[in-house]
């Protein structure tokens, strides 16, 4: 059975389907009391971590309740009786149920309404741990599996080992989601928008993420055709790879700088610095992940990339949380997050968190050719406020005798106000066009909504005209302009971008070769 979808990250994968949204299992008893004890400890930790993550986005009333649950779960007095009965041979789930049952009964017997009502909280606490206990802990997909489901969380993508192949097939999803972006950058084949017919699929499947379809329970001729197409694709990629080691140039010989986009400091381990002109965009929100990283963690991550790049430029973007990238404890829940408190707006609203990142960047700067840019700038005042924070932190570090350096500070051009009236930004060190967000804002089409995906095209004349205007503004004012959106690595968009005047693109590492090959075909 062949199901059509939309290709989100090119490639071919053949393997067993692995369902992402499996129903909950039941608890399986362990062989020893020690293992039972570990299961319960792990389940309690898991429940606590989930609550901690929820506190970040909760209002103060809800946070009060969650913090009560966390405090109860972290109290040895609650789990003590359960661990005692595990030691005497009970299974983790029964022991926990019994221990909490006793607590619940104590509250239910109270003559005060308020205390009787707390029995509900205790039941909730009990069930959170039971859920964590009975979850299928063997949820890791087999090597080379095709992960399928309604959608996939970025953390799930990052936790998966893709070194043995595999792919992603989604009923919903979007080519502009962050997982799609990650998939392109790691070269993981991904198809989205497969829709309802895909429900309940199982067994072997062939994922064609070049054309955007999947074949479930394939016939022998289908397997043969698939393997042929897959090897033809690999051959084309191999040919493109011959461009990899050379500097990029158009057919007319015009030099084009091609840098890479990275998300995690570890990404650089798989990239040969000789094949690119530096890092055009290092995202930092994935570094933030589930918790806020401390200054030292950030400093080490930034320094690693700077040292890897040698003297080549590394442009690090300050945290662009919010929108579709929530960070617990940092971002806020909003009705319309793409138009809300995200990017530099959030950083300026939370200077306590922003200053930690600023200090880490200032300290990392002496270790390479660092440039720093701010996301979601809409007005020059935001740039000035962010730059002032850099100056303040630099002075504070200098006063303490800590090694630091002020990097050139630039901005992302992704809010249409900047692209339409760039003259307010004549004082910035550089401009980097974020084509994904610029396109979604110009076309009023959310990048994570498959229903409006057809509107989300960087090649719409309105978007290209803005890109051309920004490139011209940069030339006239001697401000370097680059582009770091997905369009930069898309062979179909590259001719339009170069024709619009861009000579500096930053692309996903997996697209480096194809992008250079595409550039060599452009006449300009």
């Amino acid at each position: 059975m062949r199901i059509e979808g939309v290709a989100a990250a090119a490639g071919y994968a053949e393997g067993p389907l692995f369902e992402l949204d499996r129903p909950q299992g039941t608890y399986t008893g362990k062989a020893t009391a020690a293992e039972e004890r570990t299961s319960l400890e792990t389940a309690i930790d898991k429940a606590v971590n989930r609550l901690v993550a929820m506190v970040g986005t909760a209002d103060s009333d809800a946070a009060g309740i969650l913090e009560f649950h966390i405090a109860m779960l972290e109290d040895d007095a609650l789990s003590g009786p359960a661990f005692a009965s595990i030691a005497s041979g009970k299974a983790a789930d029964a022991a926990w149920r019994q221990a909490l049952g006793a607590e619940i009964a104590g509250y239910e017997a109270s003559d005060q309404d308020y205390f009787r009502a707390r029995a509900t909280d205790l039941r909730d606490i009990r069930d959170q741990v039971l859920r964590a206990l009975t979850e299928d802990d063997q949820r890791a997909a087999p090597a080379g599996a095709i992960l399928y489901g309604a959608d996939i969380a970025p953390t799930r993508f990052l936790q998966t080992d893709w070194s043995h192949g595999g792919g992603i097939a989604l009923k919903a999803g979007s080519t502009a989601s962050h997982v799609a972006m990650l998939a392109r950058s790691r070269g993981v084949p991904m198809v989205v928008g497969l829709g309802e017919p895909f429900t309940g699929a199982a067994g072997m499947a062939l994922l064609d993420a070049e054309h955007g379809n999947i074949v479930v329970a394939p016939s022998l001729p289908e397997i043969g055709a698939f393997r042929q197409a897959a090897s033809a694709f690999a051959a084309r990629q191999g040919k493109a790879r011959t461009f990899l080691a050379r500097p990029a140039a158009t057919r007319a010989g015009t030099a084009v700088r091609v840098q890479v986009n990275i998300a995690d400091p570890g990404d650089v381990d798989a990239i040969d610095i000789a094949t690119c002109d530096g890092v055009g965009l290092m995202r930092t929100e994935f570094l933030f992940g589930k918790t806020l990283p401390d200054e030292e963690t950030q400093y080490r991550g930034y320094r690693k990339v700077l040292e890897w790049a040698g003297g080549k430029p590394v442009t690090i973007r300050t945290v662009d949380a919010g929108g579709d990238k929530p960070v617990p404890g940092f971002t806020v829940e909003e009705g319309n997050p793409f138009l809300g408190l995200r990017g530099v707006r959030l950083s300026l609203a939370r200077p306590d968190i922003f200053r930690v990142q600023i200090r880490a960047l200032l300290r990392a700067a002496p270790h390479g050719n660092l440039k720093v840019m701010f996301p979601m700038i809409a007005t020059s005042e935001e740039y000035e406020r962010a730059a002032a924070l850099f100056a303040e932190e630099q002075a504070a570090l200098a006063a303490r005798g800590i090694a630091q350096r002020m990097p050139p500070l630039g901005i992302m051009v992704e809010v249409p106000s900047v692209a339409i009236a760039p003259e307010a930004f004549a004082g910035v060190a550089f401009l980097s066009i974020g084509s994904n967000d610029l396109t979604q804002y110009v076309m009023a089409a959310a990048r994570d909504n498959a229903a409006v995906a057809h509107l989300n095209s960087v090649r719409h004349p309105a978007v290209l005209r803005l890109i051309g205007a920004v490139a011209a503004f940069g030339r006239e004012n001697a401000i370097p302009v680059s582009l770091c959106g997905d369009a930069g690595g898309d062979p179909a968009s590259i001719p339009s971008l170069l024709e619009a005047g861009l000579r500096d693109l930053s692309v996903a590492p997996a697209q480096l070769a194809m992008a250079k090959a595409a550039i060599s075909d452009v006449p300009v």
Partner: protein
Amino acid sequence: MSATAEATVLITHDVGLHARPSVKFTKLAKSFAADVEIALAANGPWFDAKSIVKVMAAKAPKGTVLHVRANGDGASDAVRALIELVQRDFDEDAGHARSA
């Protein structure tokens, strides 16, 4: 240096020493090295003030005279800080005694 300290305070918070106040109370108690205990009567029973499960089990409603005692390093600081937290109604907005 080891020390012992004990004091009492009237709980004026509307719901007493309950869920949210207990979180703050135990967090504060845990910030001291000394052993800290609470009781609803001078002769006990005494409950570990660092355990929210035990503090909740004390079931102290509004109007209770809470006994707080500590033993060990910083005992008197611990008792003073906890008494003050109760006197401040656990820093919760009760609609009075608080400016915007």
